[in-house]
Each structure stands twice: as structure tokens, then as C-alpha cells.
């Protein structure tokens, strides 16, 4: 563990302001991330936590280069990927996988599960031909606890929890080093949420994954993550190992976030604290 898997230095990301749509000239930009510094060690699970508008998803998407940073640098496994283009990124893609928040939107509605999981395997040369891709796809489905017969199904034929498992199967099928999990349990019921998180923890152990887990819910992060990063308004407020962060939050905002979570136990003073 000489070098971290991810090394982010002074990262700035901006978006064009959708409120100022024009035909000509430079569109006004809104800065979403201001000078992020972050190191992620191989084999750890890092929680990115913040409320809406904190920039947590933007940071996640910048890590896997689904968007282009303005300045700063992102090093992945020793390679500077900040400004690599589509073609240069392609060989790295099998190691940079994503699980999306809304699996219904993230799975192409008119492709079968077999195609959705299998095609990337062929692209990265992990499977020669369709038969081998099918075999690996079925293995991936089994790995996430789904029946192999699902290869012939379409996404809309599955339940919400099943779709999210397909999303996970796709991400792990290429045997990546890194997986970004973007709010993957926020649309799910408590019972499916627990199942998916347990599955993710097991996969991490089995496959030695490095995971960045984005969530708006501090309490979900506690069990799964080794390290928690608290974001607000595009800046990192606190970045520490999970246990100490929860026991003694250093930043008042972290303490506020923690205090705002209603624990399932009767406490008459909580509302007024």
C-alpha cells in the first residue's frame, strides 16, 4: 500500500448554469466543487455524505470521469486520468465501475439483462464470444443472489430490489478494482436496503473491492464504511475513519447531521435538542 488507489488534488468542477440558456457566447458557469483533496486507499470503503447540493454525486462522477474537471488532478492507480479522453480511458474503464441510484433509469429498457451485463465483458476482452459472455453474466447474477434465468428478462419485468442487484452484477462482472455506489439504497425499503448493503459488504470482502459509497444518510454509512467524508457546498468539511468521526465529530456540521438523525428509540427531548 505504497500509493493510494485514488489521489485527488485541488479538484474544481463547474457546470453550465441551466438558468442562463443562450445561443451565443460563453454560458455562465456554476462552480460545484471547490478544491477537493482526497486519498482513497485500495481495499477500503469510503462514504461520501452530504445533503442535497453538497456536490457528493459530482465528486463521485468526477472520480470515474463521467464528467470533465475544470482544474486539479485525479490520479487512479498511479495514472493521471484528469484530462484523458474517451479512447484513453477505455482500458481503465473495466476497473472503474458505477452502480447508479435509480436502476430503472440506469438499465436500458429495451435490452435484456444478458445484453446489459454481457456486452461490456466482450468490449473489454474478458469474454470471447457470446457464449462465454453469457456464462460470466450468469455467474455475476448468481453472485448477487439472482436466478441465472434473468439473462432473458427486461429491466421493467423485475422488482426494485432485483433491478438494483442487476446494477451491482453489472458493476462487478468486469472484476473491477473500484466501484462507485451512488445513493444505491435511497429508493429502497428498509428491508431491501439491509439486504443490498449486506450484499455489498460481502462482495467487498470476496473481491477485495475499493468502494466509494455516496449517501445522504449518515446512519447507513456507519456499518459499511471504513472512512467517511462529509461534504457541504462543494467542500470537504471532515474526512476521518468512521468510528472516531461518529464518536467525536470535529466539525459542528457533522455533529448537526448526526443529531438530526432520528434513532429508533423513544427520546422525548430529541425534537427540542
Amino acid at each position, binding site marked *: 500500500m505504497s500509493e493510494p488507489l485514488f489521489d485527488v488534488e485541488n479538484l474544481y468542477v463547474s457546470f453550465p448554469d441551466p438558468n442562463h440558456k443562450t445561443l451565443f457566447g460563453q454560458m455562465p458557469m456554476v462552480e460545484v466543487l471547490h478544491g477537493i483533496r482526497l486519498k482513497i486507499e485500495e481495499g477500503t470503503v469510503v462514504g461520501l455524505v452530504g*445533503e*442535497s447540493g453538497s456536490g457528493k454525486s459530482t465528486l463521485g462522477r468526477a472520480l470515474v470521469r463521467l464528467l470533465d474537471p475544470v482544474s486539479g488532478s485525479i490520479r487512479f492507480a498511479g495514472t493521471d486520468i484528469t484530462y484523458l479522453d474517451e479512447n484513453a480511458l477505455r482500458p481503465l474503464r473495466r476497473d472503474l465501475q458505477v452502480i447508479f441510484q435509480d436502476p430503472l433509469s440506469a438499465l436500458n429498457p429495451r435490452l435484456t439483462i444478458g445484453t446489459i451485463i454481457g456486452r461490456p465483458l466482450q468490449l473489454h476482452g474478458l469474454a470471447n464470444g457470446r457464449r462465454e459472455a453469457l456464462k460470466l453474466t450468469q455467474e455475476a447474477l448468481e453472485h448477487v443472489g439472482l436466478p441465472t434465468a434473468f439473462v432473458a428478462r427486461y429491466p421493467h419485468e423485475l422488482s426494485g430490489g432485483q433491478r438494483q442487484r442487476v446494477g451491482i452484477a453489472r458493476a462487478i462482472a468486469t472484476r473491477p478494482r473500484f466501484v462507485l455506489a451512488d445513493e444505491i439504497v435511497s429508493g429502497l*425499503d*428498509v*428491508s431491501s*436496503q*439491509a*439486504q443490498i*448493503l*449486506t450484499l455489498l459488504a460481502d462482495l467487498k470482502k470476496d473481491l477485495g473491492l475499493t468502494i466509494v459509497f455516496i449517501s*445522504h*444518510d*449518515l*446512519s*447507513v454509512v*456507519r*456499518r459499511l464504511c471504513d472512512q467517511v467524508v462529509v461534504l457541504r457546498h462543494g467542500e470537504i468539511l471532515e474526512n476521518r475513519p468512521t468510528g472516531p468521526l*461518529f464518536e467525536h465529530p470535529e466539525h459542528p456540521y457533522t455533529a*448537526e*447531521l*448526526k*443529531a*438530526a*438523525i*432520528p*434513532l*429508533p*428509540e*423513544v*427520546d422525548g427531548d*430529541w*425534537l*427540542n435538542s
Partner: protein
Amino acid sequence: MSPDKATARSYLDIDDLSIVLKHQPTHRLLRSVGLHVMPGEVRGLVGESGAGKSMIGKTIFDILPRAVEIVEGSVRLGDDELLKLPQSARRKVIARTSALIPQDPLTALNPVRRIEPQITDRLTRILGVSKSDARERARALLDEVHIRDPESVLRNYPHQLSGGMRQRVLIAAAFAAEPKLIVADEPTTALDVTVQKQILKLIAEMQARHGTALLFVTHDLGVVAKICQNVSVLYGGKIVEDTEVKSLFARPTHAYTQALIAATPRYDRPDESLVPVPAAVIEATQHEIAAADDAWLGARQAGGRR
């Protein structure tokens, strides 16, 4: 209102309520549900998606979808048996006595109407209050929900307010006609945690001040623990547990409730929380429901023959 008398009896009484799909009358979506809320009581209604939580709310407000029908049961608001009234009278009773705080403040306000009529339209159009009185009331209500500068907010359109502000406006609108019953349907699910806490506090404060009966629908046991006195747990359209909140967490009796509590994440006990609901518990609960269905169908068929 004399609180002594009122506490003697519950205000909302749902008994033996069964709802089925019209084209599949043996399949029940709600299974002989009983639910009671006293004046001044805050009762939680907990369940996962598909358990039938919103179906109960829709029954109370007479806005069930056309594809379902009530086959059995009674819904009483005070002295009025809703299911025995003709629709227009029923809606009038509901409008006078009950109000809803909806789930998503971003979609629950009409985007092309100003805030003021959305708070006052029940008063002016249904209850016959004059426009100036209604405006005065709206201003007072916005004060009560801690909105600064109520004058300008009344003139605003929804998109000009933040999510938390909109939820405050919706709470004000719900209390506008001094309802006896308020149903809050997951009112904080769409909000950030820090805003959620403020809104929960506001709802509790308003409820206590007005002595309203409050039915708080949610999937979050944490929220139940903080705001409710009593709780009904719903699974598959059936109330599996009905108890005080204190005893729910101290001694949950039903296996499903126990499993649900164990599945709820908590940062203070990471290793005991987030336990997936065991398949055996789901199986046993579904078995219990099937048995209840058989008994119900048997009784109905016997009743039909008589």
C-alpha cells in the same frame, strides 16, 4: 372543544376495513384493518412500500382509485359514518373536519397558482369564509409556522420557495380550517435530515397547540419513535401490531416488527442494525395473512349463503 369529553372517545375510527381490486374481488389490498386515533393523539402508521399505508389515507379522504372498492368495514369521523353518506355529503364532512399534509412539497403545490389561494381556497370556496377574513387567517397561519414576511410569501408562486418553506406552507394550509384530524403522509421523506428535524418539530408543535388528532404515515421507525405516542404496523394490508411506541421498541411482539426494527440502520449500534429481514419471518407472516384471508372468505361465503 372540551378536552375531557373528547379524550373519552377516538375521533377517527376505522373498523374491519377490507378493500379489493374490482376485477379480482377475492384479492384484498387492505385486510380487515382497524385503526383509531383520539383527539390530541399522534398515531404512527408504519409499513414498507406496498403495505397499503397510502390506501388507508385515500380511504379517509375518499380519493381511492377507481380500480379498487371497499367491500366491508366502516370509517367514522366523529359521529359521521362516511361510508353510509352520499358522496357530496361525505366530501363536505371530510372538508370540514380533516386535512392532509402530503409527502412531496415540490409537487403538492400547484405551480401556476399563488400561495395565498392554495392556503385559503378551502375556507373561501367550501366553508364560506370571506376573502379578507381568509387572508387574515392565512397570514396568522404563516406566522405560526415561522415563516418570515408572510405578506410576500402569500403573493409568491411555489417555485420561488425552498422545499422546507413549501412544506411549512402545506402545514399551514392543513391547519387552516381547524381540522379535528390531520393525516400526514410521509411529510418529511423528500427532505434533507436537518430540514426534516425542523419540520417534525413544527408538526408536533402545531398538533399540540391545536389538540388535533394526527395520523402520521411513515416508513421510518426513527421518525415514529420521536413523534408518535402510539403506532400501528402494517404488512401486506394487515395491521400486525398495534401498541404504544414505548412498548414497540421495548417489547415488539410480532416477528415482522422485530425484524423491521433490526433492519433499521442506526449509527450508535452498527453491528446490531441493518440485519436483513429473515426469509422465514416473511414466510410466516405471509402464511398468517393467507390463513386470515381463508377465514375471511369462508365467513363471507357463509354470510352470502345465509
